[in-house]
């Protein structure tokens, strides 16, 4: 069981509190019952003692004292009622003592009064056979001035037994009650958290591709409904943001590309006109080249902003990176050959990555194109695909002009050029490496660069750890 789960913690708190409350309640109950029982017993004995004093000792004289024992025996039958009765005269003479014959030990345990107390009192005497004897004492003063003490006692055993039973009932009843409450509470908490699990699962399923979906709202009026509504509002805001940026890309595409189309069309039709002079034709051609470049920049920018919105996660597949690198290098080999650059492709085994194949191909094209562009005649460009501890890596290194150290941190920035003049002549839009970086980011891959001026550069892409199985082991080479 997960001890950090909300249901466990709620139930643990609840059970702890419950045990505490039940213990307090039990203790109070026990104390109240015990003191009640003791008080009623005390009152009982005191009342009886008073009764004896009132009835038997009223107007008693020395001569009557001999009949006292018989009267007590007749009226109160202490032996039968298992009660202790003793009447003592002021001078210490015991006029009557129950149990004297039958159970002398009880009486002998109760020491005779040496001196009569001034007022009624209560005491308890331990009995050797266990339990104790509660004794109430009242004082009677006869009309001739003689004082008598009447002691009435009863065993406390029945009270002790009753309290023992109460304790036993509490000791078994309370844990049982706690157990039932905890189990019930656990089930209740679980039941009220089931919708939460459902909400969590549904929320997991919502990605940028199905942002129009919402969590199901149960109209219960409780906190979970509020949570669901809040989450739904959050998803709505996210959806608006994503849609807003998608709309921006769409609008920008339209607003930028339509005029470019018009420019291109007008230029084409002018160039096609046989009346156009050779000089004008030259100017038109130059304009058309600029339109092409502008179109390339627009393409690059829009591709970047689409990547930022997370478009690349469409068409996600597992494929062999080594195969893709080999095919792409093959397709571009003539570019290198043209500059007498040798391209070495070191991709000996299948390396499976997961992602958008067309986008990752663009990464390879951009890096390879860069490497070829900035390497002098006779140089070497090396491609390496490997799996390091299950992590697919792609390396593109060249023996080219390299990148000055101060420029290295900036090469992935949009429109950054190491030297203003150098890449413009090569026809780049200044977006190739930004696109590489964005695509890598969309794939959770890290791209880094090391470079030594005049010796060459090395771009390395590390993909996230991927599943080792090979799903497409025999892709035909040159399929792309």
């Amino acid at each position, binding site marked *: 069981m997960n001890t950090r789960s909300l249901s466990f913690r709620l139930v643990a708190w609840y059970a702890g509190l419950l045990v505490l409350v039940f213990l307090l309640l039990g203790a109070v109950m026990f104390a109240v019952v015990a003191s009640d029982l003791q008080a009623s017993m005390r009152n009982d004995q005191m009342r009886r003692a008073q009764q004896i004093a009132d009835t038997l000792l009223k107007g008693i004289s020395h001569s009557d004292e001999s009949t006292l024992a018989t009267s007590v025996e007749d009226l109160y039958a202490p032996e039968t009622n298992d009660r202790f009765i003793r009447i003592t005269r002021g001078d210490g003479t015991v006029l009557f003592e129950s149990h004297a014959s039958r159970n002398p030990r009880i009486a002998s345990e109760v020491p005779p009064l040496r001196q009569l107390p001034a007022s009624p009192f209560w005491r308890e005497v331990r009995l050797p056979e266990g339990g104790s004897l509660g004794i109430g004492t009242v004082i009677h003063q006869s009309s001739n001035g003689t004082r008598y003490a009447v002691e009435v006692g009863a065993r406390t055993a029945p009270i002790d037994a009753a309290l023992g039973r109460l304790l036993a009932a509490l000791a078994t009843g309370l844990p049982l009650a706690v157990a039932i409450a905890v189990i019930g509470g656990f089930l209740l908490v679980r039941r009220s958290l089931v919708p939460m699990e459902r909400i969590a699962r549904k929320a997991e399923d919502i990605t940028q591709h199905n942002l129009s979906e919402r969590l199901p709202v149960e109209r219960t009026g409780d906190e979970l409904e509020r949570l669901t509504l809040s989450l739904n509002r959050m998803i709505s805001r996210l959806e608006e943001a994503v849609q807003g940026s998608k709309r921006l890309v*769409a609008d920008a*595409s*339209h*607003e*930028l*590309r*339509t*005029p*470019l*189309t*018009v*420019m*291109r*069309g*007008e*230029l*084409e*039709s002018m*160039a096609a006109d046989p009346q156009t002079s050779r000089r004008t*034709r*030259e100017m*038109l*051609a*130059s*304009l*058309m*080249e600029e*339109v*092409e470049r502008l*179109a*390339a920049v627009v*393409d*690059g920018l*829009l591709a970047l902003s*689409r990547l930022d919105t997370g*478009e690349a996660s*469409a*068409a996600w597949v597992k494929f062999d990176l080594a195969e893709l690198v080999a095919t*792409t290098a093959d*397709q*571009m080999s*003539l*570019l290198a050959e*043209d500059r007498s650059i040798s391209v070495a492709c070191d991709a000996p085994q299948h390396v499976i990555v997961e992602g958008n194949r*067309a986008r990752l*191909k*663009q990464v390879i*094209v*951009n890096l390879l*194109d860069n490497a070829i562009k900035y390497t002098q005649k006779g140089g070497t460009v090396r491609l390496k695909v490997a799996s390091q501890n299950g992590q697919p890596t792609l390396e593109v290194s060249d023996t080219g002009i390299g990148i000055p150290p101060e420029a290295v941190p900036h090469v992935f920035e949009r429109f950054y050029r190491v030297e203003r003049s150098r890449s413009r002549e090569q*026809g*780049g*839009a200044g977006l*190739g490496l930004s696109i590489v970086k964005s695509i890598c980011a969309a794939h959770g891959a890290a791209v880094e660069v090391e470079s030594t001026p005049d010796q060459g550069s090395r771009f390395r892409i590390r993909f996230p750890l991927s599943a080792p199985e090979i799903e497409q082991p025999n892709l035909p080479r*040159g399929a*792309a």
Partner: protein
Amino acid sequence: MRILVIEDEKKLSDLIARALRAERYAVDVAYDGHAAWQMIETYEYDLVILDLMLPGLDGAEILRRTRRRNHHLPILILTALDATDEKVRHFDAGADDYLTKPFAFAELLVRVKALMRRGPVSRASVVRVADLEIDRLSQQVRRAGRKIELTAKEYALLEYLATNPGRVFSRTMIIEHVWDQSFEGLTNIVDVYVRHLRTKVDDPFATKLIRTVRGAGYYLGEGAEQ
């Protein structure tokens, strides 16, 4: 042959209309969605060229309505969006072809022609341009009776140029057909391949067949350099 051009950018629609009229098509132009839909309902067209972003009814809606009414009318979509899933969505909705702005007018005309022909294009297996012979079945190329060895990409490039001799193909068109979109706008790959192709096809001969139109692209054919 009557074509309806639906494009809200007046300059662009007029340009397209002009280019199509030059090819002797009858062209109507609509500048907003409602007008366009009315025209589609009223007249019989052989082809509709449809921009997706329109005032009034948008392009997707017109595409849907038209498809419900007429299953065979060819529709060529013009759009500024080049995301692949976008294209797939419109093909699913019933578009017959798709051009991304900015496009070369040469390309537009090629596509229009292809759509108007309807059905599979009957292509001869052997194409001849002057003394150059391209056999599509055996993928063999001969010039003046002499066999020329080409790599697969060089052959694909030559064959593509030969689909329409005399017509200019832009670099973008060539890249899209012979390579794939990953190469777009990034490399001088087309120029390099054309140069290599020339050393094999043109250099040994007096007449040059692979021609450059600066700023526009390449074409295959005889005649003066444009």
